[in-house]
């Protein structure tokens, strides 16, 4: 009987499948990001500046609501310059977020954008955004962080209002840790 050989083969195959599925677990991470980006799941917007252009759709207007949230124990005062704008799809608009470091320590922040409804995220094109970079701010300082965006003319008609939210996180410890390690 070559049973022993067969058993060893089943064992090897099982282990390979196990290892592959472990890898698959990790592969879900980039896979998920791609799906999110394509389908706009979870309101994630692109992390790089938008390059393209779009036709202008004069026939309708869309309300854009700006929102800000402080994540964790972030001590800055952080808010949009205007709370909302009425925009024409395809046209480029500019606004800004204001931040003020209320402590005496120098801190680094990262703003994380999120759009609602989620599927509108792919149509919210940011030409310039402070969220593309980390934002250092010395203790007691304030800053105006510009945002240039355009709502795509492809935005489904059913969407009459888009919310753009930024959550500001304190990442000073992470950044300091990295530079110290270097």
């Amino acid at each position, binding site marked *: 009987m070559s049973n022993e050989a067969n058993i060893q083969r089943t064992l090897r195959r099982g282990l390979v499948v196990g290892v592959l599925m472990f890898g698959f677990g990790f592969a879900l991470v980039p896979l998920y990001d791609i799906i999110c980006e394509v389908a706009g799941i*979870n*309101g994630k917007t692109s992390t790089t500046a938008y390059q393209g252009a779009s036709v202008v759709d004069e026939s309708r207007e869309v*309300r854009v*609501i700006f*929102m800000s*949230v*402080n*994540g*964790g124990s972030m001590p800055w005062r952080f*808010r949009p*310059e205007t*709370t*909302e704008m009425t925009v024409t799809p395809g046209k480029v608009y500019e606004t800004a977020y*204001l931040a003020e470091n209320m402590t005496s320590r120098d801190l680094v922040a990262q703003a*994380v954008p*999120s*759009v*609602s*409804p989620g599927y*509108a995220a792919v149509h919210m094109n940011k030409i310039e955004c402070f969220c593309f970079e980390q934002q250092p701010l010395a203790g007691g300082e304030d800053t105006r962080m510009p945002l240039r965006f355009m709502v795509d003319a492809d935005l489904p008609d*059913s*969407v*009459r*209002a888009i*919310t753009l*939210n930024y*959550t500001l*996180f304190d990442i000073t410890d992470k950044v300091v840790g990295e530079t110290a390690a270097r």
Partner: protein
Amino acid sequence: MRFWIILMSLLTTPAAWAAWDVNMRQGVTEISQAVYGLHMTIFWVCVAIGVVVFGVMFYSIYHHRKSRGAVSDTFHESTKLEIIWTGIPFLILVAMCVPATKVLIQMYDASDSDIDIKVVGYQWKWSYEYLGQDLGNGDNLAYFSNLSTPRAEVYNEAPKNPNYLLEVDEPLVIPANKKVRFLITANDVIHAFWVPDFAVKKDAIPGFVNEAWTIVPEPGIYRGQCAELCGEAHGYMPIVVKVVPEDEYVAWVDNKKQQIAQARGITPSVAHR
């Protein structure tokens, strides 16, 4: 026989205990009532299937028992039967999907709203911010809403009031008959904003914004709770929504803004828009 009796009494007890709440709350909004309708539909579908399946089963248990002299048959397969009992449930479920899809589409309606409120979950309280209601310094009207049940009631040192654990110091105030959009997110861990009477339940996720909306026809006070485990005091961050007529709402906003501005020493430079 004993099995029968126990099972039957079990199935009929809900009716006998009518004083005790056994069913879903209908709620007060169009959506919550549509959801209640779906709930009852699928419930009766299940009851109907259950009656047939358990009916056949208890019939056999009674009649086809060895003690009654039953002799077992030898049939053991039938493709026809398999197809029937794959097909019929399938069709029933397809039929069920139709109204469910309709309600879901209605819930996901993204048309514009009258009022936008930012809802942020914290460990362990909620904050509400009225977007566009400037205090005069660029900040919006915003406040925290904390559990107001006294510790003594929790630790059984004082009698519990009827709204035990479902009461807050500052309720969320919204006008009746207006479309209110909740923009929901969190500061630390995941929470969930739930008001059963509106059939609104959405997770509050740090870094991400979710939305939900409601139109409440009836003024009143509606109570809910955080619906996602968020740590130690997860059971102690209720949601109380006070729905008032529109004019009362406008007055409340003005008053509240003044109150907060005064407390924080802001001189209102911009009148409310």
